[in-house]
């Protein structure tokens, strides 16, 4: 910026202001005014007079410029000069002047917030919502929002709402998202009206402009807060555009989309399942995007893609950026809660790299894994063979104690050594968290090995994949709907995703599925007793089962309803949860697949366990079919 102080400039400006030729030159004129105000408030009267004169210029561009500059002055006592041109400006025949005039009233209001706003002006502004120019309409909304802030913003009644909805297509992207935001306050009177509005907005959900899509989805979520099924189908409709935004050329937009996808996944974990490849990291992406993508990937793992996802995550573990590699290792640990064998193989393989930051991240992950999934104890213990010399590291000590206690092997030989190690940790460790854990194990060890085992195995702790069975339900949409399309998801690191708190034990009963069944299929054992039992050896081979199933006539099937604590879990997550408690399914049908046809009611049970019990996915099927019929 050039230097603007000094006598000479002021003189020059004074000359310029009184020169009629300068006033036709927009840029210099504009700069002149700004300089004058900044330098010398005494000159402002001169400026205001010039501007007032220009407000009645024949050229609309000059009028709008003058009006805008006058409103931007932010001088006390401006109101008396500017009121008249603003009132005239509202009725100007050029749209660009009206745009400026409407916002001008908002500026005046913020300049003097205590002065009572003229009712006539407010009414005029309400009337101008019907202005033919879409920007004027949107500006009216904005101005009314500011002026009526204390009364809760602009009042949206039925005619206004419908007028705005019908004019929506005329606005540009920015206007549309603003109007959609204002419309959130409107509550339709009847269900019919609601659905009319929804169908009017439906196409906007697919908009490839991210702002419009996000604003529409937010509006959908707020309008249908009592209709979860509609919300779900809206989420599914918006999935495509959201994924497109997550792959857009602009990194910042990618990040915003990823943060919002994480929100969505909190309620609908199965939403992005088949699109997991979209969340593979590009090598040139900044670390914060990579880390977000990994958090999403952990959520998307299922039987079919687990190998691919782990393969991909394995590649990130040796990333140059240490934080990225740590996140990758943690992500593998997160997946390890449901697929422990594969993940343990990768994690122990990483120990071989003998790089400090990797080793420490791996040890930390293993420690958490042993705490959450005691069945990993064995594998961890064998991976730690030959680490005796490293017993200086607190992480190793804690891990070794936990693993060996679980294995119940060579305990006598190691007991004193472990105790000494723990005592060393308690003395030396600076990290409070680790020290506390060492202290816990030390005290437990005092009570005896069996006690440690009992505590460690006492209860399987909360586990995201067990959610469908042990009832950590996905959050209802209303939990996060209010923060959708706000800055909040971007400022908060979504740290809750994928990390359950290992400190809160959530014991799992051995047979948690209360199942009810209706008898009906002659080919299958009678289960009218209500509770289904598991069989160790399958009564049918999968091929036989399929043959029998296909022979079944329509309607002659067994329908079992599982009272699942989570109302809307996807069949995939149910299956993952069952695997965790070592229940294998004999047959499994993804939704919308032939030949497992769904009857017209959509209440068909199609999943089968090893022999017995029968797990159904009626719930899931009903979901999909009701969405299809919507």
């Amino acid at each position, binding site marked *: *910026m050039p230097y603007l102080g000094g006598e000479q400039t002021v003189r020059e400006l004074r000359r310029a202001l009184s020169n009629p030729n300068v006033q036709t030159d*927009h*840029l210099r004129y*504009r700069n002149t005014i700004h300089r004058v105000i900044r330098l010398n408030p005494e000159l402002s009267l001169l400026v205001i007079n010039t501007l007032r004169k220009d407000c009645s210029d024949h050229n609309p*561009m000059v009028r709008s410029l003058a009006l*805008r500059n006058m409103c931007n002055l*932010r001088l006390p006592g401006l109101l008396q000069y500017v009121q008249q041109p603003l009132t005239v400006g509202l009725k100007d025949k050029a749209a660009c002047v009206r*745009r400026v005039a409407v*916002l001008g009233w*908002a500026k005046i209001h913020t300049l003097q917030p205590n002065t009572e706003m003229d009712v006539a002006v407010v009414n005029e502004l309400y009337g101008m919502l019907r202005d033919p120019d879409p*920007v004027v309409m*949107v500006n009216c909304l*904005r101005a009314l929002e500011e002026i009526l802030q204390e009364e809760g913003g602009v009042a949206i009644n039925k005619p206004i709402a419908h007028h705005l909805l019908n004019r929506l297509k005329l606005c*540009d*992207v*920015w206007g549309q*998202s*603003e109007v959609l935001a204002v419309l959130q306050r409107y509550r339709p009177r009847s269900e019919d009206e609601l659905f009319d509005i929804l169908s009017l907005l439906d196409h906007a959900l697919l908009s*490839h*402009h*991210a*702002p419009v899509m*996000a*604003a529409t989805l937010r509006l959908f979520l707020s309008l249908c807060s009592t209709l979860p099924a509609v919300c779900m189908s809206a989420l599914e409709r918006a999935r*495509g555009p959201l994924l*497109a935004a997550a792959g857009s*050329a*602009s*990194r*910042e*937009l990618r*990040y915003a989309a990823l*943060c919002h996808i994480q929100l969505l996944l909190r309620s609908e974990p199965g939403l992005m399942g088949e699109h997991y*490849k*979209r969340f593979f*990291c*590009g*090598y*040139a992406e900044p*670390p*914060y995007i990579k*880390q977000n993508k990994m958090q999403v990937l952990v959520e998307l793992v299922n039987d079919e893609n687990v190998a*691919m996802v782990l393969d*991909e995550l394995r*590649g990130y573990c*040796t990333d*140059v*950026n240490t*934080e990225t590699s740590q996140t990758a290792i943690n992500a593998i640990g997160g997946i390890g809660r449901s697929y422990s064998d594969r993940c343990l193989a990768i994690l122990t*393989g*990483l120990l071989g*790299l*003998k*790089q400090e930051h990797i080793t420490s991240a791996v040890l930390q992950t293993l420690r958490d894994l042993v705490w959450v999934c005691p069945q990993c104890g064995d594998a961890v213990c064998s991976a730690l063979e030959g680490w005796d010399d490293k017993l200086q590291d607190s992480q190793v000590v804690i891990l070794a104690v936990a693993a060996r206690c679980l294995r119940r092997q060579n305990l006598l030989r190691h007991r004193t050594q472990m105790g000494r190690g723990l005592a060393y940790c308690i003395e030396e460790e600076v990290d409070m968290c680790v020290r506390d854990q060492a202290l816990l194990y030390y005290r437990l060890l005092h009570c005896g090995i069996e006690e440690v085992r009992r505590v460690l195995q006492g209860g399987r702790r909360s586990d995201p994949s067990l959610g469908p069975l042990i009832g950590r339900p996905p959050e209802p949409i209303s939990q996060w709907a209010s923060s959708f*399309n*706000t*800055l*909040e998801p971007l*400022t908060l*690191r979504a740290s809750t995703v994928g990390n359950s708190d290992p400190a809160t034990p959530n014991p799992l009963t051995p047979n948690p599925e209360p199942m009810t069944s209706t008898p009906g299929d002659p080919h299958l054992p009678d289960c009218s007793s209500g509770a289904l039992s598991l069989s160790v050896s399958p009564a049918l081979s999968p091929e036989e089962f399929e043959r029998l199933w296909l022979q079944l006539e329509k309607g002659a099937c067994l329908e079992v309803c599982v009272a699942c604590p989570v109302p809307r879990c996807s069949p995939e997550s149910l299956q993952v949860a069952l695997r965790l408690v070592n229940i294998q399914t004999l047959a499994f049908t993804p939704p919308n697949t032939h030949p497992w046809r769904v009857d017209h009611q959509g209440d068909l049970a199609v999943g089968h366990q090893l022999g017995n019990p029968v797990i159904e996915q009626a719930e899931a099927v009903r979901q999909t079919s009701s969405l299809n019929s919507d």
Partner: protein
Amino acid sequence: MISQLFILSSKGDHLIYKDFRCEAGSDAVNKFYEMVTALTGDQPPVVMKHKELHFVHIKQGGLYWVATTKADASPFTIIEFLNRLTALVKDYCGCLSEKSVRMNFALIYELLDEVVDFGYIQTTSTDILKNFIQTEAVSSKPFSLFDLSNVGLFGADTQQNKVAPSAAATRPIMSSQGEQGGKNEIFVDVIERMSVVIGANGVLMKADIEGEIRVKCYMPSCSEMRIGLNEEFSIGKSQLSGYGAAVHVDECSFHQAVRLDEFDTYRILKVCPSQGEQTVMQYQLCDDLPTAPPFRLFPSIERDSGGRLLMYLKLRCDLPPKSAAINVSITIPVPKGSLRLSQELSSPDQSAELQPKNKAVHWEIPRFPGGAQLSALFKLEVPGLSAASLQEVGPVSLSFELPKYTCTGLQIRFLRLSPIQPGPSQRWVRYVTHSDSYTIRI
């Protein structure tokens, strides 16, 4: 709503500062720079908060473009707006750089005045803005020998006359009848970005293409343009036809100004381009490349008896023989602590170097013709090399540019302006494929 907007250079110089609502002090700029430089890399830097003020920023052209807001605004709107603003500045100033922003500060202030009023976005369309923006861009163009390459011997037409000079599309949209100005040019670019993951066994694990058709128009008024795409262009999985040569994309979206009445039958897009750059069509293709991926790697990695790491890499380019990849740069992660690199490359124009900070070997190939195969032998001295260290080698990532080539096969059949423009007008069609992320696992 936006409270302030400012542009900072990467060193923290204030280039542009505009306060729309006087809600926050101007010290916010310094505060922002402090915060952004204090980031450790783990924190997501797009949105930051200081007291009541949210900073949303994007980084483009080496500059920070920052908007601050006090209200709870939509992040998508602000980020998209900042992106649009950079595009506008690029259109009006020719290119995005610290220098061009510095030289055109007056023009940018003028733009901001028209685009945002009282923190509310008014319009970003060049059609409307062109009535208001009076300042002309100052463009700095150092003398360059390349400009002379278009002039043939004794003024004869060279082959290059038929090719648009690379700098042609980086001039401001508004320039008076000066040297280059007034030239009625229109550029239609088909740009594709591919992200590919190839597994260790050579299987294609992921292949996504995101493409767009971008129109950059320098004509002051252009009534209608018809863009004809391949006739056998199909969208979505359901429309797959039996023809082998069909060009297929999964999803496709259009700019709202595009009229599609002839699209279903003739695959013609009709658009009235406004001045400046705009994306007319965007499309995506997932997991289904019509041709083989452009590069394939055959690595062999071993330890030799002297404890050195031997990497023998054969890289094959599977493009059609007429095409070529340029600016190919290959990054091979190597074990930590690698000390020295000795290399044998198959041709002298290639180069390779070890970057210990990034634990990687960079191998650069300026031009790589289709069908060719290049090889390189790297010998690395790594103290304490163990069998496990070999795991640290890979995945290899490539970045490259494929000029005059689209992976989907999308072509522009014709480009017609109606009515025919008076005076000389030039239409250029350009194709390019960029690697967004091209990874080959070892």
